[in-house]
């Protein structure tokens, strides 16, 4: 049997187990709750959590002068513990110039380009992951708090539509796995509810830190779908954050 047919069969078997209701606010579970006790312990111990290596690197980058004016992030924003507290709980956030929501990574790159006059960091580069881990870490333990901003509504609804739409050669929607079949198994993995509480995450499978965008790419590739474009991806991220509103941030989380 080809790998593709096997994957389809697995998916059909899993999804023939019957439907269920959408995940209600009281039953929301972070992917953390589905992890093995050893992996949870690794996340909770800052000395064993490899994501903290990026946080430490990000703290150094925060203070490093860059660009023609030699300004550091700290030069404008001061101590990140105060100025960046809660920022990750409200991203993707509205960007006036772009007239659309942008991710935390894009926000950092905007400052990098326009305020520091530096070269923007490449997506998924260690530099960008380090700064985003450092900024997101300042929100650890805080509830996700996307504002009820009417400008965000159409993007959130677009994200919801993508979440519910069947896609790819396997013809599966995000919701089929992450709502109807959450808690069940797909091969060896528990299907989590798919909440974006821990990003950037240190994924053991990646042996590295990675962004929410990378995680979503894994899931879209998994159903053999066309990749999402930038605007779709940010709308989906926005919807996922709204769906997880009130859940505590864990950055940098560990995931299997």
């Amino acid at each position, binding site marked *: 049997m080809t790998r593709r047919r096997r994957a389809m069969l697995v998916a059909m078997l899993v999804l023939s187990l019957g439907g269920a209701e959408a995940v209600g606010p009281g039953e929301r579970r972070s992917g953390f709750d589905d992890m093995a006790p050893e992996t949870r312990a690794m996340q909770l111990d800052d*000395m064993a959590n*490899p994501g903290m*290596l990026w946080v430490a690197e990000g703290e150094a980058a925060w203070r490093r002068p860059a660009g023609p004016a030699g300004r550091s992030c700290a030069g404008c924003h001061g101590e990140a513990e105060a100025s960046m507290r809660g920022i990750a709980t409200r991203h993707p956030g509205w960007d006036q110039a772009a007239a659309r929501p942008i991710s935390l990574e894009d926000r950092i790159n905007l400052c990098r380009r326009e305020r520091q006059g530096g070269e923007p960091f490449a997506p998924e580069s260690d530099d960008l992951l380090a700064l985003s881990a450092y900024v997101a870490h300042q929100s650890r333990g805080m509830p996700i708090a996307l504002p009820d901003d009417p400008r965000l509504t159409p993007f959130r609804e677009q994200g919801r539509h993508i979440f519910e739409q069947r896609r790819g050669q396997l013809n599966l929607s995000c919701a089929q796995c992450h709502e109807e079949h959450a808690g069940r198994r797909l091969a060896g993995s528990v299907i989590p509810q798919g909440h974006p509480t821990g990003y950037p995450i240190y994924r053991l499978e990646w042996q590295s830190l990675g962004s929410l965008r990378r995680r979503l790419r894994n899931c879209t590739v998994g159903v053999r779908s066309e990749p999402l474009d930038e605007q779709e991806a940010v709308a989906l991220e926005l919807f996922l954050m709204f769906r997880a509103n009130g859940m505590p941030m864990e950055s940098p989380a560990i995931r299997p």
Partner: protein
Amino acid sequence: MARTLINLPRSARRGEVIEIRTLIAHPMETGYRPDASGAVVPRDIIRRFACTYDGEEVFRAEFFPAIAANPFLAFTTIATASGTLTFTWEGDNGFVQTETASITVT
């Protein structure tokens, strides 16, 4: 230079068993993995780790390709005197990294 995190108590009583924990950023590339073009990515791992306490070796480890990226180590030693602990990781491609930490023993 690779980023490291080292954790040990700042102070201890003489004779106390102390726990030391280290993390280092390193890809631990196994040498068996093909890249996107099918070519095998050359091995790039840490081979050895040693911890000395005022010059005396108190812990040593050998590393192999099956060890995960960004390796974490936890080990113990006995606090004997105030002094310096030196941590050295050595590996492929001339990789050497040394870090130090001090401890006060009363």
